[in-house]
């Protein structure tokens, strides 16, 4: 076994962590597990596919940047995908979750999110078919990094970008009024109102940020693996594992949880075989729920 699993694990884990932030935000602010969150990832990936195609058509034949297998069209499509997925999350809240919140219990919301997930996934399959799609068909060549480790420029770029986003998100949560408001609403919505916070506005911000980060995750996943309508749904279990491992409701917890799950999955390949890789997230989730249900950063409520 060499240390290559660290690169693979960090890459996968960074994407899981980014995706899990929205899941944990929705849970902490609205107190329900949103099973439709994976669809924001898939939709983000496909929105970027359309946007990059459109931008490429306007800018002319796109050229790859350096050793990367993509050019400016995909980079410019990234914020479009983030915005699109964020708006999709907001719209889903407006037409479905907000109405149910006013009269239903959190289990009603969870079941509704299952339904929404199915509908959004089916729509994506209808629009784009089941066939895998790629932003680029160029081959990403892995470069030696020393110590026997290899990574492609795409992988390093994606990893660096995901880590920068995580740090930014951490700064937003700890240094900005928006971050404090999100933490305040998740702790005690009535007290947040008494502190003059527009709780409905904070909930909209949580959807926009969580959906947006999921959309970015979709693009990063589409770039390093492939685009499929089920890509987000397939990531749901690692996302939940990361959120619960970090302590549901904790943004830094979700990020760290994602990295741990990613590393654990990657480590499992040389140890127990690739066929059991998917079970690792489930085992970590199970162990965490049994040993420390509040997670690494969670607080008992």
């Amino acid at each position: 076994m060499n240390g290559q699993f660290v690169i693979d694990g960090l890459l996968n884990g960074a994407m899981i962590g980014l995706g899990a932030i929205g899941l944990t935000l929705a849970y902490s602010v609205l107190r329900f597990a949103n099973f439709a969150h994976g669809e924001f990832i898939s939709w983000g990936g496909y929105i970027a596919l359309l946007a990059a195609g459109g931008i490429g058509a306007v800018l002319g034949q796109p050229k790859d940047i350096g050793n990367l297998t993509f050019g400016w069209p995909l980079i410019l499509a990234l914020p479009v995908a983030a915005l699109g997925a964020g708006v999709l999350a907001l719209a889903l809240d407006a037409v479905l979750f907000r109405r149910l919140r006013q009269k239903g219990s959190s289990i009603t919301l969870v079941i509704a999110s299952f339904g929404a997930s199915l509908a959004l996934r089916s729509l994506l399959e209808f629009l784009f078919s089941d066939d895998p799609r790629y932003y680029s068909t160029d081959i990403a060549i892995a470069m030696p990094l020393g110590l026997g480790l290899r990574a492609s420029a795409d992988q390093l770029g994606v990893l660096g970008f995901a880590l920068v986003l995580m740090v930014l998100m951490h700064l937003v949560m700890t240094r900005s009024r928006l971050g404090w408001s999100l933490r305040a609403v998740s702790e005690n919505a009535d007290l947040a109102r008494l502190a003059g916070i527009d709780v409905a506005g904070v909930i909209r911000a949580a959807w926009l940020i969580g959906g947006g980060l999921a959309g970015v995750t979709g693009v990063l996943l589409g770039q390093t693996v492939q685009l499929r309508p089920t890509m987000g749904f397939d990531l749901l279990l690692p996302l939940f594992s990361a959120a619960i491992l970090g302590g549901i409701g904790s943004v830094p917890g979700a990020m760290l949880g994602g990295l741990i799950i990613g590393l654990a999955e990657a480590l499992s390949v040389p140890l127990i075989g690739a066929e059991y890789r998917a079970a690792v997230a489930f085992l970590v989730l199970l162990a965490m729920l049994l040993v420390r249900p509040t997670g690494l950063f969670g607080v008992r409520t």
Partner: protein
Amino acid sequence: MGVTALALETRDLVAGYEPDLPIVRGASIRVARGEIVLLLGPNGAGKSTLVKAIAGLVPVSAGEILADGASIAGVPTHRLIRRGLAFVPQTDNVFTGLSVRENLVLAAGLLPVAQRGQRVKEMLTLFPDLARLAAQAAGRLSGGQRQMLAIARALVVGPRLLMLDEPSAGLSPLLVGTVMAKLSEIRGQGVTILMVEQNARAALPIADRAYVLVEGRVAHEGPAAGLFDDPAVAALYLGGRPRAA
């Protein structure tokens, strides 16, 4: 008491968490500017529900709430705070996951940017204990320190009317005295105070007037001084029903 001097008034207010189960059942109270008014009464009388309804946290099904003469029933809580009303709940009244300073800065966010830092500084001067704990998580404060932070959090935006729900609950007699003295000092700065308080003996000395609520209605009102000398009030406060007039 002229109408223009009224800071707050409720008229035949009916409120409760469930529309068909009102807890406040037609309560009418008046608070003049600069007063400290107490809401007393036995457990379950609807005192807390009344102040929560005024703060927009409990649905109002009938009656009126007027602040400085304008109707505020149905106005969302965060907008009431912008209009100069503040409320300190009895429990869960600070953000435990935020530091003392973050609690204050967050609440000060309603002020113009240039004033925020100054107001937070003023609160830390008013509550010197909090100043040395500014960086500490509010969840690690003692009961008394939390109560001070909760009051400071409510005051940081400079409200005209401060409502408190049992500010002495769970505090030692010494701390209760400190809280009451602080509230008296705050009133001295022109803030009107409406306070629910079980510990009437501690609160009456700083109060101007008091209402005794029984079963969701005002059963007695009068000056705070000598309130307990009235045998009817003593009976009400001990859980009795209002006598027929």
